[in-house]
């Protein structure tokens, strides 16, 4: 069953600028994990925001985004608000800034419940602590009473994950959720994400420019370049056997461990030359 269907999505910021997204089409089945890769500025975040309906109001959007039977681009702000956090949720890149620094994280997680389920604070608290434990926090009670600044990056990132999962959404969007973490923490967070996604059966749109990370989380991948999707395929196929020259370059450049130390690394430009002027 198709959960998310994005069709011919085009997004433009400002009158005289190149579209940030240019006719993007893809679809995602319930319970599936789709990775989105591409260099910085290729439109990954814009895609995610379009699905969330969180694009700034001055963005001009055409095309359709259909999520669980709702036309996102047609919905009112309150209609969107009902979906967000319930049907679709998002895990943001920066664990340092994505949480309100003035509110205890337990309350922030509970808010998600209260906004959608109308839960009382008593039972909500229990649910929050349970969820925090589920995302692998060993001391969920203490964490719930902590302010964001009292937690480490990895802990914060897991709190955000808990916020995204607590309402058992159909779709979780992760926008570069681990770039701010160091490797060891990243590994545990990714492992936990994999585990809870598995358990809840939620679908996932996973955005990253780190191919290795995507390859560990996802089964399908789309490759974006300058606001367009240039290649789609399963993780195994695409990384083993990239077709588009850009993808080839990306895969080659990403494999640091494959190169001999000190030797020249392959770069994208070795495989793919953008047409003059297209790239600034």
């Amino acid at each position, binding site marked *: 069953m198709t959960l998310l269907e994005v069709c011919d999505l085009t997004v433009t910021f400002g009158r005289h600028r190149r579209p940030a997204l240019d006719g993007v089409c893809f679809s995602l089945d319930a319970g599936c*994990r789709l990775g989105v890769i591409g*260099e*910085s*500025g290729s439109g990954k975040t814009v895609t995610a925001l379009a699905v969330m309906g969180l694009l700034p109001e001055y963005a001009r959007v055409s095309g359709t985004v259909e999520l669980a039977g709702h036309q996102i681009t047609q919905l009112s702000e309150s209609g969107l608000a009902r979906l967000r956090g319930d049907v679709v949720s998002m895990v943001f890149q920066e664990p340092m800034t994505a949480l309100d620094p003035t509110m205890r994280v337990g309350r922030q997680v509970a808010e998600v419940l209260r906004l959608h389920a109308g839960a009382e604070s008593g039972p909500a608290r229990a649910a929050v602590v349970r969820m925090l434990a589920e995302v692998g926090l060993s001391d969920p009670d203490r964490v719930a009473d902590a302010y964001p600044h009292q937690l480490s*990056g990895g802990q914060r990132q897991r709190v955000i994950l808990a916020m995204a999962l607590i309402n058992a959404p159909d779709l979780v969007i992760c926008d570069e959720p681990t770039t701010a*973490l*160091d*490797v*060891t*923490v*990243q*590994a545990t967070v*990714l*492992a936990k994400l*994999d*585990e809870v996604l*598995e358990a809840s059966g939620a679908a996932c749109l996973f955005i990253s*420019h*780190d*191919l*290795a*990370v995507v*390859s*560990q*989380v*996802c*089964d399908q991948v789309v490759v974006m370049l300058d606001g367009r999707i240039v290649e789609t395929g399963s*993780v*195994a196929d695409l*990384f*083993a056997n990239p077709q588009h020259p850009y993808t080839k*370059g*990306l*895969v080659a*450049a*990403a*494999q*640091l*461990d494959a*190169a001999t*130390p*000190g*030797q*020249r*690394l*392959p*770069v*994208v*430009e070795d495989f793919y030359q953008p047409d003059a002027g297209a*790239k*600034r």
Partner: protein
Amino acid sequence: MSADLFRTERLTRRYHNDGREVPALTDVDLRIAPGARLGIVGESGSGKSTLVRLLAGLDRPTSGRVWFEGTQITALPERRRGFLRASVQMVFQDPRSSLNPRMRVGDIITEPLRSRLLRPQLDGLDHRTRLAEVLAAVDLEPDAADRYPHEFSGGQRQRIAIARALAPKPEVLIADEPVSALDVSVRAQVLNLLTDLVAAEGLSLIVVSHDLLVVRHLCDELAVMRAGRIVESGPTEQVYTHPSTEYTAALLAAIPRIRTGPGEPGASR
């Protein structure tokens, strides 16, 4: 003794945060030979940046000493650190925040040349020609000099930062997380550039990173830090293949690798 490029002795740096002490660096003894390519790795907050800032003379230690080419620099007043400033240059993690948004690229790159401290060392260096040289060295168009940092991509910005570091013809380049803010496609470019430059100019290189693969690619020696101390050091390949501490082993194990083979998805396996 004076054969060392850098030598530190019981180097300690504690920060005071509202009265509480944070031991960022504790009793670090380190020797770096001229021409070395040293990588410093470790988890976030382990004191890597603190260590290199002390080496570059941008901060003063709480206790302990630092020698650069046989001269003890810890006690030296700022105005007598010209030789250090001329010889040691730094590249920072975030190319966005390390470039002044209100200065033109040309001015940013030539700023070190205008320093009064460095002038004696850089006698007769013409700013315009040097600018053109370093821009060429980092593979940027000459007209880049007239533009502002925000007009460049992340990779280009990092190249501008490198060009600035190269301008005063340093002997040592210290790079604090030079590629962690860049995406993979750009990372390769910058790493290539650094490799080439180090080879071409005969630079000594000190690279800080939490990414072991980056360090392995650039450096022949490795120091692993944890909680303000160096817990392991040695030739890169040796540490990489035969880590002697559990911590290093964990760091190595956590490196994500592209999984191209068939099998169930999931990092846990």
